[in-house]
């Protein structure tokens, strides 16, 4: 079997989802009216609220949602076989993924462009908003920890990507300086940035920087993140994210071409289809669902839909191609990533040191090198590709984290002085996330992140359901996925917490020594984080059920 079939199957299933179920749901439940003014028109300020074309918004939404989740999440398929992963990516997207993104977008559009916080306050309860805020803090710390460790791991495993990454950051900074300080045109400054990145990739292959210590790479990553967090957005974060988007798009396109050309290149799916319900990490349900993360559904998308795209939607009828279309495209990306893992033989996986995220680079290389050649450059490029996704998201998250610290400590001035500012907040955020990341319990950490991420999606779906009940529209299409996601994610969080408590100190791997006091303490903290997330999710769910009943009764 060739990887091209994954892509073809995805195109058929997602095409069906879009042109049948999605169109029907859009027409019969939300009934978008192209004449109804959207917040982009009613509140137009040319800054936050302004209408843009559906194509631009589709690109913006896709770029916002397509992070490392759909790219790395399918690694779990190496534990259970590719058939269950394929089924979940296809069906999860068909019944839950697109409906979540699209409905969150429509919910915000129909509520004056409000975001998740004010919406949960209005539709559920003030307590739900506070719980959501608390939930967000843990969620952000987990994202930061996961992406810090991924970035450091990639630096360690792909020495050629170190210089490439340094040059990417440099390219971003130079590009930003040319644009803002030297007042150069966007095209020229972007070109300069891209040239610097290309030089970085070539230099990276020529001068690989090797160091076996993960701790060193974590310090290196933390320094970049700290600089990005405390400097004005326009100096580092924004231009780096901007120039990084070009290699990011190029990497997706290359992967797509590699999968499409697989019958010509002779690259086949080599992994077994099914390996059993139980794996080392735990049972397939709920862990497969939460691990694949954004490939099928993700709570992060509801944040993007409500805080980004909703304020720029030109007409209501654009919501389906923007929200639903972008999510289904992301499903395709997840299928391509799944294919990239699956082309590796069991022997190759063994050679690479077992089931790891880094397997993706080798899979991508196997797909692409027969077409392009230049193996070391493709390896350096895909190492950089993964790092830039991890680093750019971590750059955004660390800023968002200290802003959230500022919000939650607003009522406690002494605490606000310490952690409610960019210096203290960034240091605390990096220290906590760094300590989490350093444990070596990466797969468990990913599952904890996946659980909280999907739970957020379930909560967003329940918000949508309450709104639909209030306006007397059918709710079953969002209520059923919401119930499934909340039960699955709560189960996953409990499973992970149980693992951390019962295998105290055993889940950590090098660089930390298993069984030491520090390892046990960190495992205990992970367990507590899992329980806290579970309780916060439960609190919101209980309040949401009450609000739903009230809305159904016409209250």
């Amino acid at each position: 079997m060739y990887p091209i079939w994954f892509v073809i199957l995805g195109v058929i299933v997602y095409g069906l989802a879009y042109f049948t179920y999605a169109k029907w749901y859009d027409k019969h439940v939300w009934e978008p009216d192209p004449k109804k003014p959207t917040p982009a028109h009613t509140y137009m300020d040319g800054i936050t609220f302004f209408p843009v074309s559906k194509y631009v918004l589709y690109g913006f939404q896709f770029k916002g949602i397509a992070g490392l989740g759909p790219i790395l999440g399918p690694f779990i398929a190496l534990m259970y076989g590719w058939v269950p992963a394929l089924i979940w990516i296809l069906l999860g997207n068909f019944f839950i993924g697109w409906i979540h993104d699209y409905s969150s977008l429509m919910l915000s559009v129909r509520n004056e462009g409000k975001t998740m916080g004010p919406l949960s306050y209005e539709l559920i309860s003030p307590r739900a908003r506070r719980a959501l805020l608390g939930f967000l803090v843990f969620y952000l710390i987990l994202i930061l920890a996961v992406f810090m460790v991924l970035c450091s791991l990639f630096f360690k495993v792909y020495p050629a990507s170190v210089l490439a990454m340094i040059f990417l950051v440099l390219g971003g900074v130079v590009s930003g300086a040319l644009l803002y300080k030297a007042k150069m045109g966007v095209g020229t400054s972007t070109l300069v940035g891209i040239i610097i990145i290309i030089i970085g990739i070539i230099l990276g292959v020529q001068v690989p920087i090797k160091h076996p210590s993960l701790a060193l790479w974590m310090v290196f990553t933390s320094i970049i993140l700290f600089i990005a967090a405390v400097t004005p957005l326009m100096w580092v974060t924004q231009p780096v994210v901007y120039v990084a988007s070009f290699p990011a798009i190029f990497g997706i396109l290359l992967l797509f071409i590699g999968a499409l050309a697989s019958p010509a290149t002779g690259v086949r799916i080599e992994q077994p289809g099914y390996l059993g319900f139980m794996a080392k990490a735990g049972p397939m349900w709920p862990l497969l669902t939460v691990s694949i993360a954004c490939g099928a559904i993700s709570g992060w998308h509801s944040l993007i839909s409500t805080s980004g795209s909703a304020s720029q939607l030109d007409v209501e009828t654009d919501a389906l191609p923007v929200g639903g279309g972008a999510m289904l495209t992301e499903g395709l990306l997840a299928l391509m990533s799944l294919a990239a893992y699956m082309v590796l033989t069991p022997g190759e996986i063994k050679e690479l040191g077992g089931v790891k995220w880094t397997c993706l680079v080798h899979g991508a290389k196997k797909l692409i090198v027969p077409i392009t050649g230049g193996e070391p450059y493709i390896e350096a490029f895909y190492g950089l590709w993964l790092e830039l996704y991890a680093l750019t998201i971590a750059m955004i998250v660390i800023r968002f984290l200290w802003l959230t610290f500022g919000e939650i400590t607003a009522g406690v001035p002494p605490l606000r002085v310490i952690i409610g500012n960019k210096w203290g907040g960034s240091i605390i955020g990096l220290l906590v996330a760094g300590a989490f990341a350093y444990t070596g319990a990466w797969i468990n950490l990913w599952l904890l992140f996946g659980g909280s991420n999907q739970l957020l999606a379930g909560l967003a779906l329940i918000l949508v359901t309450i709104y639909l009940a209030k306006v007397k529209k059918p709710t079953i299409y969002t209520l059923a996925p919401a119930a499934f996601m909340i039960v699955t994610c709560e189960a996953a969080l409990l499973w992970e917490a149980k693992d951390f408590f019962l295998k105290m100190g055993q889940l950590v791997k090098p660089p930390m020594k298993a069984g030491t006091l520090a390892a046990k303490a960190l495992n205990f903290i992970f367990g507590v984080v899992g329980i806290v997330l579970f309780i916060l999710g439960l609190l919101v769910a209980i309040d949401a059920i009450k609000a739903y009943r009230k809305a159904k009764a016409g209250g």
Partner: protein
Amino acid sequence: MPKWFKRERKEEKREEEGGVKKEVKEAVKGVFYGMASHGMVRYMLKTRMYLEHLFMLITLGDMLGFPILPPYYSLKLLPYAIPHIKTWKRSLFRERDVTDLLY
């Protein structure tokens, strides 16, 4: 079929094809711009907004109870501030929290 009719159909077809081509070109351009640059443009606009809000606060701070500039200068700057009053007020009154700051 008369020649003129055939010619007209051909022209119509060409126009339609041109329309589709134009639409596809617009779509590709739009998606690429949306993925690569739209976030950056939004950020620049937001930066300008914060600076403009600062300007509004300095000139029209009296409206919020902050007598920052002597009214003489406020009055002189009023023509520059007036076009922004509506947006400024809406932005200040809009309920927001950290989830607004994400994107």
